[in-house]
């Protein structure tokens, strides 16, 4: 019983963004060109433009108040983005024979400077900062190739080996690890392999609950297509709108609902990866195999250093019968953490469970749209109940948001169990609405950085995973470290730093941080930013946290790989790289740093 998706209609083939992505996506910021926060200084109100998001068209009266008070932002300090300067884009290192031959085995090939610039970066704060200030990267791809199928990729990699051209695969371009940046010292021609034209679902297997999918498909397209057939992968990272399947595999991504569906490594059944020595794949698609160490393990998280992931067979699940949101508030963050820990010990995991600290809660409240009078009235009543009757301190309380998925019976059972545990830790159910907006806002928050950057405010997020007994201390210490380093780096006002616990595991949790600071008066904002980021990361490691839970290593965290996996561990990775890619064709310099033909002498 194989369902072919070839014949499905127009809606099915709609893409998240077109081949020339800058037509719909910002070239120097997050997301769609038509969607952004607009601040009107005269009325002191903010609106969200476009019509793509529920927030669009609404007035956000509190956003800039929060921005001024909680982030100490100065709205008179304006740092608008510079327009695109085509002359500042580095000249390409051309390889005409490669280009001529590559044209024959791809859907499209472009040497357009704008395309090249679009493919030379991800969404790290420093990348966006550089784009906005017209100091483009020293090195960007020299040509962008859009393969149409697995065989195209095989041929392109062969050509790259033949002409010694570097290949950097790219999906949605949402990397926040510097993985897409080209190594500055690379003198060979660099070809970016834009995988997003490879977006077909080859087949869906309702019998064994698997789907075979091309790796360039963007998350929202994948989910929409599967949904029309009644399925879902259940993989829902916050970047779902723009990130690609291949990118998820290459970075070891994690989705919000991992408690039900697992992380990416739990979902893949089979991976096809084209390496410089040929295609690496398993010959069977089985639930489990005992055949030595699993080769998938070194493909997952390889970050484009070993080859191009072209096709993935993934587990799928029928759409859940029931999805319900929920939320609970706790008197403080520590109580909330204890609650999450208890939930994990009792193994009653809802699809998603997240705990926002007070700073992030304030942040969330700030981007809530304007309320009607009746809503305001009921809000006041609720607030009175929580602060007056229950004695919660509004500057301490933490909000836990929940998603339940499954059969109606399971969801109801889980709900009652969860709220019973919450009560043990002083939690009060805070309604479905609070939970739902919490999750929906996630997509909008990514747009906020661009607004902040208009006022010299640099912001970034980072994450880690840590055992339960260290969650609370880690969050506390990292916040404190950032505050101290900001002061040392000459940041004039206290930074914004908020966190949430986003995933619960049996042995620990994933913590997610937002931090941002006003760069007014800071001599070199980028240097300050990177010093702060490094200090924060080192504090995380000192507190027993991992170098990353799902963002990956890329280039910004490659200094910490060796200490994370031991020198021997790194040597093993280098050895694999050396064997599969002796000429360093996949020379993006991620993970294990820049290696190349000179690799052996370095070792």
């Amino acid at each position, binding site marked *: 019983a194989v369902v072919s998706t070839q014949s499905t209609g127009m809606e099915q083939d709609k893409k998240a963004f077109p081949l020339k992505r800058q037509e719909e996506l910002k070239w120097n910021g997050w997301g769609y060109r038509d969607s952004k926060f607009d601040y009107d200084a005269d009325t002191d109100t903010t609106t969200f433009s476009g019509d793509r998001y529920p927030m669009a068209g609404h007035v956000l009266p509190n956003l800039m108040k929060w921005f001024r008070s909680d982030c100490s932002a100065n709205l008179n300090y304006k740092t608008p983005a510079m327009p695109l300067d085509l002359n500042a884009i580095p000249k390409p290192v051309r390889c005409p024979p490669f280009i001529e031959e590559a044209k024959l085995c791809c859907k499209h090939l472009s040497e357009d400077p704008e395309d090249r610039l679009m493919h030379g970066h991800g969404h790290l704060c420093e990348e966006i900062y550089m784009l906005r200030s017209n100091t483009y990267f020293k090195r960007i791809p020299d040509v962008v190739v859009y393969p149409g199928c697995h065989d195209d990729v095989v041929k392109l990699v062969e050509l790259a080996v033949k002409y010694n051209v570097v290949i950097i695969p790219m999906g949605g371009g949402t990397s926040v690890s510097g993985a897409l940046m080209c190594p500055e010292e690379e003198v060979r021609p660099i070809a970016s392999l834009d995988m997003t034209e490879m977006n077909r679902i080859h087949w869906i297997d309702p019998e064994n609950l698997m789907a075979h999918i091309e790796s360039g498909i963007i998350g929202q397209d994948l989910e929409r297509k599967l949904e029309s057939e009644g399925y879902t992968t259940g993989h829902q990272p916050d970047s779902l709108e723009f990130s690609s399947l291949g990118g998820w595999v290459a970075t070891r991504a994690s989705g919000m609902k991992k408690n039900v569906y697992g992380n990416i490594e739990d979902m893949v059944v089979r991976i096809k990866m084209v390496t410089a020595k040929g295609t690496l794949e398993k010959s069977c698609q089985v639930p489990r195999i005992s055949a030595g160490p699993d080769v998938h393990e070194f493909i997952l998280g390889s970050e484009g250093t070993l080859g191009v992931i072209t096709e993935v067979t993934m587990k799928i699940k029928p759409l859940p019968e029931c999805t319900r949101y929920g939320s609970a508030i706790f008197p403080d963050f520590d109580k909330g953490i204890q609650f999450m820990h208890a939930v994990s010990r009792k193994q009653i995991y809802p699809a998603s469970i997240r705990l926002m600290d007070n700073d992030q809660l304030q942040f969330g409240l700030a981007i809530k749209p304007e309320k009607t009078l009746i809503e305001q009235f009921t809000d006041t009543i609720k607030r009175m109940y929580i602060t007056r009757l229950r004695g919660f301190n509004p500057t301490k309380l933490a909000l836990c948001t929940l998603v339940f998925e499954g059969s109606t019976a399971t969801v109801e059972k889980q709900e009652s169990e969860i709220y019973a545990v919450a009560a043990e830790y002083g939690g009060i159910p805070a309604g479905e609405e609070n939970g739902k907006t919490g999750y929906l806002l996630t997509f909008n928050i990514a747009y906020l950085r661009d607004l902040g950057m208009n006022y010299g405010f640099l912001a970034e997020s980072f994450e880690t995973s840590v055992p339960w007994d*260290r969650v609370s201390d880690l969050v506390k210490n990292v916040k404190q470290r950032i505050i*101290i380093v900001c002061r040392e780096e000459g940041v004039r006002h206290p930074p914004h730093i908020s966190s949430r616990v986003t995933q619960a595991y049996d042995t620990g949790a994933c913590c997610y941080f937002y931090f941002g600071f006003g760069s007014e008066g800071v001599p070199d904002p980028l240097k300050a930013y990177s010093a702060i980021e490094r200090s924060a990361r080192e504090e995380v490691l000192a507190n027993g946290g991992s170098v990353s839970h799902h963002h990956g290593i890329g280039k910004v965290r490659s200094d910490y790989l060796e200490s994370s996996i031991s020198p021997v561990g790194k040597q093993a990775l280098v050895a694999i790289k050396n064997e599969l890619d002796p000429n360093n064709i996949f020379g993006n310099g991620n993970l294990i740093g820049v290696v190349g033909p000179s690799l052996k002498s370095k070792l």
Partner: protein
Amino acid sequence: YRPPKYRNIRYRVPCAIREEVLQSNRVRRVISVVGKETGRTREDLTSEASAILEEMGHEFSETILRCIGGLIRKVFKQITTRVTVHTAGLEELRRLSSQKPLLLMPTHRSYLDFLLVTWVLYSFDIKTPVIAAGQDFMFMRGVGALLRRCGAFFIRRSFGKDKLYWALFTEYTQTHIINGDAPVEFFIEGTRSRTGKSLQPKFGMLTIALEPYFDARVADIGICPITLSYEKTVEENLHVREMMGTPKPKESTTGLIKARAILDNNYGTIHVNVGQIFSVYEMAQGKVDRKVRALVPRAVIPSVHPHERSFVNKLAYRVILEQQANAVVFPCSVLSALLLYRVSNKQWQIPSHELEVDMQWACGLLISLGCCVSWDNSADLAHHTAMLAPVVFQEEDNVVVDKNPPSADHLNSVFKQCHSLISLGRRRNELMHAVVHAAIIAKVLMRPKTRERTLMEYQQLRDILQYEFIFMPGRGEADFQCTTQQLLDLGLLTVSADVYKFVDMDTRSFLTSLLDPFLITYIDSWQFCISYMPRTAQHGQNIKSFCNRVQTYLSILYCEPYTHGESVNLTVLENSILVLVKLGHVVMDKTKKTVYCCDPLAFSNAISLFAFTIYPLSAKL
């Protein structure tokens, strides 16, 4: 009084703190371990733990503090001329008190120390500390309870292997640091220094206090060395007696009431200086890898790693050196040094005008060596002499060192004049930290020597005197470099063709006179050791009683007239033995505190070589 609070604080009342300690992982684990070892029940041990905490814990109350604050102010007003404070340092302390947990480490010279610190912090609107105090005060009726309410918590002097006590004490200290209820104050010297010099640092409490950082329970800890410089300490006389062997009187409330006479005296000026506040995070960068501990679950009681231990040791020395750098030396200390210099030349009666000139010169020298002397260029000799009373008095135009001071009435005649000399020595010691390096170099350069040889002998003397003064371990050459450069810049030293020569003879003899009493005593004490120290472990003698024997021997050896008091100063004698232990000539049993020397011949050769090279002028040898 609305002091800023630590940003991550959770409000807890004192009994809640004790309850949390009782419920802590560490204490519960230790209870189960001890239970298995001794067969005692959980309930039994828990109630013992609870009783220990009851005995240990503070009962801090802001209301009481407010009441006491005024009283303390009155007391200080009564007994001192003035108390000066370093406001910039206190401002910094207040700023940091909301940022990170703080450890306050004052110098310890007097019982008044912690009242003083608490009162100064209270006056400056800084959260007053909880203070690790010895149990001596606890038994004072009323006073103990009062101190508890001011934040003092009491620790047994010795609890050796008592695991439960150790766990409770550790947890109790650490919980204050982790939660930042209040700064934690303790004395890095461990006890009051009777000698006027800094004592060698103790590492135990500091290790406990820094563990929350090593364990990543807190992001940083601020360490604030505080120097309390007294023009005259209240307990001066008692300390001199203790150095000579009279045991410390037991603290009691009746004793305190009896001692109310101190209210009638004037103890001059007190300077409170807050030193540079160290960030443990910054100092530990590259030295302590916290990741190592992250692999030990919180449920397991962690052990201290060697790299952490060596970091703590270095830091302890840094704290003491910082305390010394911020010490204010009073002119009466300089006067003591000058008087002792005269006495060593058998002059017990010195014309005032000569002393005035000498004071001018000596204070100038000290200031040029970087010492902070509270000297305003006008020698108010009467005042300085009064501060040295009763062992020194002014008679017509002379300043006289009393050979038979009234405070030594209880002593037999041999020790009477020593009392005056030890008392003056104690005051002189207050300036030693500033000149010790220069004095060693002056001693080494009794005749010109090559740089290499000077350095070697400097190192040698530094090793010998390591228990007497504070030297940062491993910094010998750097300190030498720094001091010789200073002496060269001042023109006291010349160097030509790699040969150092001390050119200023007055300065040299003054500086060496500061060191000589120690060196002479050491050599004399060692002479006794060669002949009389037990040879085998089973004959080993307790170090304290052995020192008493040395003291008796030296008092007979010297008889009158004494030229320096160190020969009968038990603290110096003990140091002279401890350094032999350190240098490997003498063996000391750590638990029984007994000493013996198995190879007196080798030891004797080493000593005579040392005595000959360093001390060719010693008349006694």
